[in-house]
């Protein structure tokens, strides 16, 4: 399966980004890593160009809310072309404090299927694999 990944917005966490790429590859995914400082539109466009199955956005400095909340608008621009894509976001998603109970539904409302706030990488990727298995049954 193909995954487009990268770090959204003004965020330069290159080490985390590389770890995510390596972990995805170790699990057998074909990875397209856009790196750090990536705009939301570039992520969606990369999914289109690669015909990816999954978009996995990470955000480590908490700015995801400002950079990722227009996902629904971008998805609607491409219409049915993105119907089968799984949208996932994980990391430290908000600046300041906040609980997963508040944050997860908010990001799902932005258009993400899977949301992981302050959850360790492998737990998040396990959940992604379970989700994909369930969906492809």
């Amino acid at each position, binding site marked *: 399966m193909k995954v487009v990944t990268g770090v959204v917005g003004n965020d330069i966490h290159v080490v985390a980004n590389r770890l995510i790429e390596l972990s995805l590859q170790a699990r057998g995914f074909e990875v397209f890593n856009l790196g750090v400082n990536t705009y939301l539109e570039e992520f969606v466009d990369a999914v*289109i160009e690669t015909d990816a199955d999954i978009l996995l956005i990470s955000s480590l400095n908490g700015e995801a809310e400002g950079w990722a909340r227009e996902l629904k608008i971008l998805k609607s621009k491409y219409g049915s072309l993105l119907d089968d894509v799984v949208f996932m976001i994980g990391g430290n998603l908000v600046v300041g404090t906040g609980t997963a109970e508040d944050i997860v539904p908010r990001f799902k409302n932005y258009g993400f299927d899977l949301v992981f706030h302050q959850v360790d990488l492998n737990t998040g990727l396990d959940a992604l694999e379970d989700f994909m298995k369930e969906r492809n049954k």
Partner: protein
Amino acid sequence: MSQVNENTNDKLLIDVGSTYFKMSTSKGVEQHFRDFNKDIFDDLTYKCGDTINAYEKEDVYICSSANGGLSTLIIGISNSFSLKYATNIAFNSGINIIDTVLNKDIDTTSRPSELIDVVIVVGGIDSVSKIFDEKLFNFLNDINYSNIVYVGSKKEAPYLSENIENLVVLPNIITNKLHVEEENLKEYLTNLYQADIMGKEDIKHLYDITSNQIFSTPYIVNKTLPYIGSKFTVANPYILIDIGGATTDIHYSKDLVDENMVTENEYDRLVFKKLGVYKSKESLIFAAKNNEFVYELLAHLKVTEHIFDETSEKATTILMQLAIFLVLCKVSTYRKAYINLKLHALNSIVFTGGISKVLKPEEIEDIVSFFYQKILSSQHNPNIVMDSNYDIWTLGVKEK
């Protein structure tokens, strides 16, 4: 005559612009205003025949931006990759007129009525298929074009070749890592430019005086930029602005953009196709009048908008200053064009073309300062470098 050349290892370099001919020999550079009632070749040989006749054909090197350039329509599947990469390659190949269509919107896009020189179809990494469908073919049936090239996913190429007549298929410009691969398309477009010259009555005779390939001027300038340090003290990152009679070109260091684009060349180009001080004067004035800061700028320059109606030397100077201001606006976050440049990080601005013959350095510095203060609220002052003797162009032709 050839003895002279052997002794001096001399070359004759000619640039045919939309407004002027420029000619460089070992004795210096001269320029001549074009007579638009005459064929380019006749005008050139009438004004510079003696000099031209003093050289063998193999010692004459010509570049030109006078054939109007190729008009290009790019059809891609995303703004950030296929359209952006193809546009970037087209600009760097010296093409001035570029329109783009996003494939998902193709059935609702209005059909251009004019003849398009080349249509570029692009999209997807090599493993992707089923990208395009009959909507593309319907669109292509509705428009007039002379050439069509496909530079997208390898897997999609057979399907498109079956359905599009005379389709040229080249290797994908999007690599499997989503980077840009520009060489094949660039070579194709550069060759098309040659073919275009050969087909234009008023310019093809230029091959009567040279046995070397005629390149487009912006392509030559772009090739020169890595060597610019040999002629000027320029601190990277920099931009080079060439304000001509019909268009304005900007060549910029890659460090000034954050875009997801990796190429071997360190400098990219973009063009404002209706921004010039002679042939495109009317559209320049129109753009100026639509800029909210222009009246403040005119006041700063101590003139009124009546200057737009004048044809004096002073009016030309003001138009050139306006052109600088508008171009900087267009590449700043204030007016987003094809790309935004990080102008706060800019160390030098190099000016070439006719502008370097008309404006004094202090007049340019004044406008650049005004732009930084008004638009970017900054005291930043990049170093101004003037290519007053067309060294960039001559260096580029020699390197070529």
